[in-house]
């Protein structure tokens, strides 16, 4: 597969000495959804601004669609579509007018633009609202229109800066669906996000960025595999005493952390560990009050590579990752 974005030692220093991007190297394959994950201020947006020719490079090189960002920004601009974090639509213009304005500035012939605009409006389910002024749109509708204004000229690469931040869950899921559909049609997507779930669900590959550097990159499942397994939380009825030693002896249990009557077991392979655990519990005559199994999440990956949880995660993550994080935090302090 050919590489459509390549960055080598990319560095951005804002005067006097703020190093926003610190010598990062990465590449994005054609047809891929590539997620840049990290907290606010990690350098994701700056990287994207450099790739979309809005920011200059302090050191290093970057190419987009085969064109050097620094020496041929004009050629880069012809190959990309950009969806910024903020809404930049014209609220006094109608939905269709916004699309046609964008098409005109991208030099798309009118008939072709109309055709493409209709397709895109259908894709994001705005075909019924294209004759209304954007002023009357809901937040989610604006975001969907903003997305497709970057696509009327059929760019090779779409840059998305925090595509769903501040949106409700339904709208977010719908935007993911649209992006998956567009990607199936061949669009390469470079996306920044600070939603772990978004990076996980949508990206073929993820790079985790923190303090201007890429800490780790790979497919979401590769990254989760780094954590070596799932976590089983067991809570026993009071008065069982310290069971840590007992649990540690069970085959295929990698690690045990006790917190009161609650034990967290790290299991590289759940399937092989469970029988052992159950028979040990039965043999010991122990009574389980509660038990739950947690699959690895991007949240934990993030915690593992950066040493802290997402500073500004706007939503509690599903499936009990909060307690999972605590396990790692505790494990680290021991």
């Amino acid at each position: 597969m050919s590489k459509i974005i390549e960055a080598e030692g990319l560095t951005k220093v804002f005067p006097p000495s703020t190093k926003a991007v610190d010598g990062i190297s990465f590449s994005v394959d054609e047809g891929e959804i590539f997620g840049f994950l990290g907290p606010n201020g990690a350098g994701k947006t700056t990287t994207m601004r450099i790739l979309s020719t809005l920011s200059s490079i302090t050191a290093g090189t970057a190419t987009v669609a085969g064109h050097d960002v620094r020496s041929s920004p004009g050629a880069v601009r012809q190959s990309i579509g950009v969806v910024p974090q903020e809404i930049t639509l014209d609220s006094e213009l109608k939905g269709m007018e916004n699309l046609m304005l964008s098409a005109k500035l991208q030099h798309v012939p009118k008939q072709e633009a109309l055709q493409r605009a209709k397709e895109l409006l259908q894709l994001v389910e705005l075909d019924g609202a294209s004759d209304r002024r954007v002023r009357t749109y809901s937040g989610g509708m604006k975001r969907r229109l903003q997305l497709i204004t970057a696509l009327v000229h059929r760019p090779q690469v779409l840059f998305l800066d925090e595509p769903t931040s501040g949106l409700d869950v339904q709208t977010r899921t719908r935007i993911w669906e649209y992006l998956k559909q567009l990607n199936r049609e061949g669009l390469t997507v470079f996306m920044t996000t600070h939603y772990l779930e978004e990076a996980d669900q949508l990206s073929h590959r993820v790079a985790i960025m923190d303090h201007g550097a890429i800490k780790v990159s790979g497919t979401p499942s590769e990254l989760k595999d780094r954590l070596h397994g799932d976590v089983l939380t067991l809570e026993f009825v009071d008065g069982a005493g310290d069971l840590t030693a007992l649990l540690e002896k069970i085959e295929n249990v990698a690690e045990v952390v006790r917190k009161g009557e609650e034990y967290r077991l790290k299991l590289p392979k759940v399937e092989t560990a469970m029988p052992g655990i159950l028979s040990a519990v039965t043999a010991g005559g122990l009574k389980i009050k509660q038990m739950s199994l947690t699959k690895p999440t991007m949240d934990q990956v993030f915690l593992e590579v950066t040493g802290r949880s997402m500073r500004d995660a706007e939503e509690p993550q599903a499936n009990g990752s909060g307690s999972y994080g605590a396990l790692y935090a505790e494990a680290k302090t021991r």
Partner: protein
Amino acid sequence: MISESLTIGGRAVTKWLRNPFAVVAALIQATFWLVLFGNSFNPANAFASSPLGGGSLGFFQQAFGGAPNYITFLTPGVIAIVSLTTMSFMGVDTVLDRMSGYLDMLSTYPIPRTSIYFGAILQNVAKAMATAMVTFLLAFFVPNGLRLAPGFNAIDLVGVLTTFALLSLVFSALFSGIAISVKSTDSFFAVVNFLALPIWFISTALFPISFFPGWMKPFAQANPISLASEATRLLIVKGSLTGVQASSVTGDIVGLLLYGVVFGALGILMARNALKAR
């Protein structure tokens, strides 16, 4: 370049027309100037009722370039002032476009970045011209309103419109350059306030050059508002100009053109600097 500038400018004009508040506000301002200021300040009354004026219009007309009444003298000045304030208000749209990220987004399109500046100029000139023409028509209908010279002809009308267009171009080139460069509406208003009042006061928009003390005269005469006001006044008060009058108007128009070129060049530099990747 031209088509992109027109597209960007056209978008803003459409926006302006759809939000008629801004149009109405500009016209209300012009009406207040003509009706309220034109009648209250009216020096023709002052002269006529003082011993100096001897109870006739003669003295007023002598001082005010032969105008039949004060509002006829004032109309070109009001159009120039409204053009100045319209420009400064409209510049805010550009500042807001920058703050909202719109200019950034335009900068990711494969278009020359100076077309963003020219787009801003075009829209402002269009807006100012629309306001100027309505103000001009309005001036006929206010009490003691505008009275054109009997000899006023089509060529004179073209001269008047050209002058208005050039004046709005001058201000637009200046304020669009500033608007594209500043980062907030606050700093834009600070600059506008700093520039607009002197430009206005040291001009012959409201009263003739003979009212100014010697040290102010050269500034007042070189002021683009004065150039536009003087040219328009000659055209509407005299009509069918003589050779001398025509060359005076031509001189004013050339002066406005020069301002336009200088401010335009300055604005291009400012826009390039403001929109370059950094």
